């Protein structure tokens, strides 16, 4: 019998930030940075492991909005432009610091990173990143799952079954379109769970989901295996519980691995350190200073006097941290196994963008983890779907309302800075339900209009806008996203109510907010 299982789960998600009407748009860089520092490096490490026949298992949520953007031709073209800019800056940096023994190698490292990204994206994958993930999905190395259509924090919409269903149904259609399969698992945005959502998930043939430790342990009844085995709702939906210790080892900003003094410091960046007339031409941000991605300093400690980043030492530390992580999990598994009649499972879910973008050495840590797990006896890596098949029977329990956000419930998404959203979002939802009842069987232009209305409602429900508003980051952008979605919806509602159609306007809007091409507005019809 295995001493225990470890399930690594990554949530890859970005909100829909496509803005084709502008030649450059600051928030689109969220996607370009994640591609350059997270998604493409992850795919490279998968390829290396496969080439060396090293087994690995990973469950990944590729969110519907992210999939929409990764499959978008306009953003693909812009990403190449971004990479060309980064490569130009890398060349300039090599000229500036190339002879410096500490910084020269780093400038060249960034040049190599962006060159690899360009080669992979343009040549190897022919701009089709989703196909690259799908390759490992089909081979059983990755298990791809999906999440709410626009990453809506679903507990807020618990009173509107139609709204929750629309988020889930749209996501499933988008996943099937991208990967040709129905996903087994569903990532609840921010692990936002409420009692009752199991009925909706089960109705869509979802087999499993994940909840925060708090929600799992506060379940009814208390799960007797703690977080070391999933529970099952009365309808059979399997619920995995986040492992608190595995989370803290990586996630904690203070004591987690990414805060190690040897790792690259995220915040010190030439976008803020060098004169604007030097970095500005590469930023496409006017007079605003933004992160450039070129960072030369190590975390060092809680001091402004940073030491130069030593890549070799940092990679060695990532390997040490991988060893430590596995040893700690194995020790925990051995302790837990004494109290269980099956091997304990530890589920470690993280935001994917943490690895590489924020924690530069994160992909190296994941790779080291897989390499060590393959050669050392101990924990077996497993996807959540594989675990479900191996252990189909689990204790019956329903988790409590919870999330992985600050405070453990909905404090992040219902806050003085963002609570104004919900008045408008709910009004749009209610009106969308009304429209789908009034026009249940439309076709042609009217169906297109109703489908666009449904897209706008889903966009207004996205949780990222509330998160940004609370954080005070890109808050005016976030506010505008909600306002635009609601205003667009209201305009459509008025058009349909007055039986006037602005064909040119709706066509333009369809081209701009072009996500979920197979959306069906009827999913908002009342559930009977």
């Amino acid at each position: 019998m295995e001493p225990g299982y470890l399930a690594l789960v990554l949530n890859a998600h970005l909100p829909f930030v496509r803005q084709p009407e502008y030649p450059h748009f600051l928030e689109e860089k969220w996607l370009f940075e994640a591609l350059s520092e997270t998604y493409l490096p992850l795919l490279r490490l998968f390829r290396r492991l496969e080439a060396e026949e090293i087994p690995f298992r990973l469950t990944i949520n590729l969110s519907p909005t992210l999939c929409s953007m990764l499959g978008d031709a306009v953003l693909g073209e812009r990403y190449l432009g971004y990479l060309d800019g980064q490569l130009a800056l890398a060349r300039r940096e090599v000229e500036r610091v190339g002879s410096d023994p500490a910084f020269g190698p780093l400038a060249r490292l960034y040049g190599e990173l962006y060159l690899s990204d360009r080669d992979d994206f343009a040549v190897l994958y022919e701009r089709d990143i989703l196909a690259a993930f799908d390759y490992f999905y089909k081979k059983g190395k990755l298990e791809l799952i999906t999440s709410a259509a626009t990453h809506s924090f679903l507990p807020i919409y618990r009173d509107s079954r139609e709204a929750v269903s629309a988020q889930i149904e749209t996501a499933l259609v988008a996943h099937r379109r991208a990967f040709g399969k129905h996903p087994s698992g569903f990532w609840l945005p921010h692990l936002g769970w409420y009692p009752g959502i199991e009925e909706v998930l089960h109705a869509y043939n979802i087999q499993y989901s994940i909840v925060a430790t708090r929600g799992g342990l506060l379940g009814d009844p208390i799960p007797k295996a703690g977080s070391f085995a999933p529970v099952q709702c009365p309808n059979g939906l399997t619920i995995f519980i986040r492992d608190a210790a595995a989370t803290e080892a990586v996630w904690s900003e203070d004591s987690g691995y990414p805060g190690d003094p040897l790792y690259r410091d995220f915040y010190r960046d030439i976008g803020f350190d060098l004169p604007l007339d030097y970095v500005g031409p590469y930023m496409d941000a006017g007079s605003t200073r933004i992160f450039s991605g070129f960072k030369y300093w190590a975390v060092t400690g809680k001091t402004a006097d940073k030491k130069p980043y030593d890549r070799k030492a940092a990679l060695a530390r990532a390997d040490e941290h991988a060893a430590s992580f596995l040893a700690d999990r194995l020790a925990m598994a051995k302790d837990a196994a004494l109290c269980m009649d099956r091997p304990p499972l530890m589920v470690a879910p993280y935001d994917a963008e943490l690895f590489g973008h924020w924690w530069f050495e994160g992909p190296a840590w994941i790779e080291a983890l897989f390499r060590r797990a393959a050669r050392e006896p101990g924990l077996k890596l497993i996807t959540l779907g594989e675990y479900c098949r191996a252990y189909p029977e689990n204790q019956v329990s329903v988790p409590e309302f919870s999330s992985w956000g600050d405070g453990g419930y909905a404090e992040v998404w219902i806050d003085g800075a963002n609570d104004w959203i919900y008045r408008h979002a709910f009004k749009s939802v209610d009106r969308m339900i009304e429209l789908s009842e009034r026009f249940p069987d439309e076709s042609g232009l009217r169906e297109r209009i109703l489908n666009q209305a449904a897209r706008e409602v889903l966009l207004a429900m996205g949780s990222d806008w509330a998160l940004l508003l609370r954080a005070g980051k890109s808050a005016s952008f976030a506010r505008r996203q909600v306002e635009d979605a609601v205003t667009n919806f209201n305009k459509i509602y008025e058009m349909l109510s007055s039986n006037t159609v602005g064909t040119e306007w709706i066509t333009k809007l369809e081209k701009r907010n072009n996500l979920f091409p197979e959306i069906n507005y009827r999913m908002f019809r009342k559930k009977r």
Partner: protein
Amino acid sequence: MAFQNSGVKLEKFESLSDEALHALADRMGLGIPPDLERVFVVEEILVALEEDSDERRSGGVASLRIEETKFSSSDPVDMDFGRDGPPAISPSTCDTFIRVLVRDPSWAFAFWEISDTERASIASADGRLSLFLRVSETTDGEKADAKRDFFDIPISEDDSQWYLNLPRPKSRYRIELCSRIDGRVRMLAKSRDLAVPRQLLDSLSSKLETDAAELLRLSGLESLDIEPVSDDNPQRIIKAGLTGE
């Protein structure tokens, strides 16, 4: 209310109008006198933001900050000053309704609208409205007219939202938007029943088998702060753990 604000620049506040500054202070619950000099209003806001930031740092909000880092290209500080301007989306006043969202075991967020027609029908002779929220504890399957414990929260006719303190976790509540006319209470709208989540494990957990108790301990029970406590203060605020829970 909490703001993430490290490094908020003074200039950003100085560019705001007096009205916008006071509105921001109101939203932060600072209770600043309307005639306070502008420079002191700004100072009060900055102090409150700094205190809030410290609290958030020490309160273990690493998870939130980490989630935010994926949005890092942008201006690190961009608070939503636009909120103080006219709302870009005018709320409709066609319907009368109340909707309530559960935030955590102690708080819920209520928002409502009263249609113009309704307002006209409940106004007193001098045109004023006497409004309040009635918070009633309910039980599963209860008949609508069953007698229940309740308390009232007076609201002004300009209010359209409220954060409600709910007395007991693991309970159910219904919120009614009511008016009082000539001593008579009239319900204008009611929410659906709210299920308030548990804050702590039931005392039952102390009777768990040894193995189950050990597995709960290994799962991080202590760091989550969800074990039953001996004091009987149900409003205890959960400490946010470093894990974001």
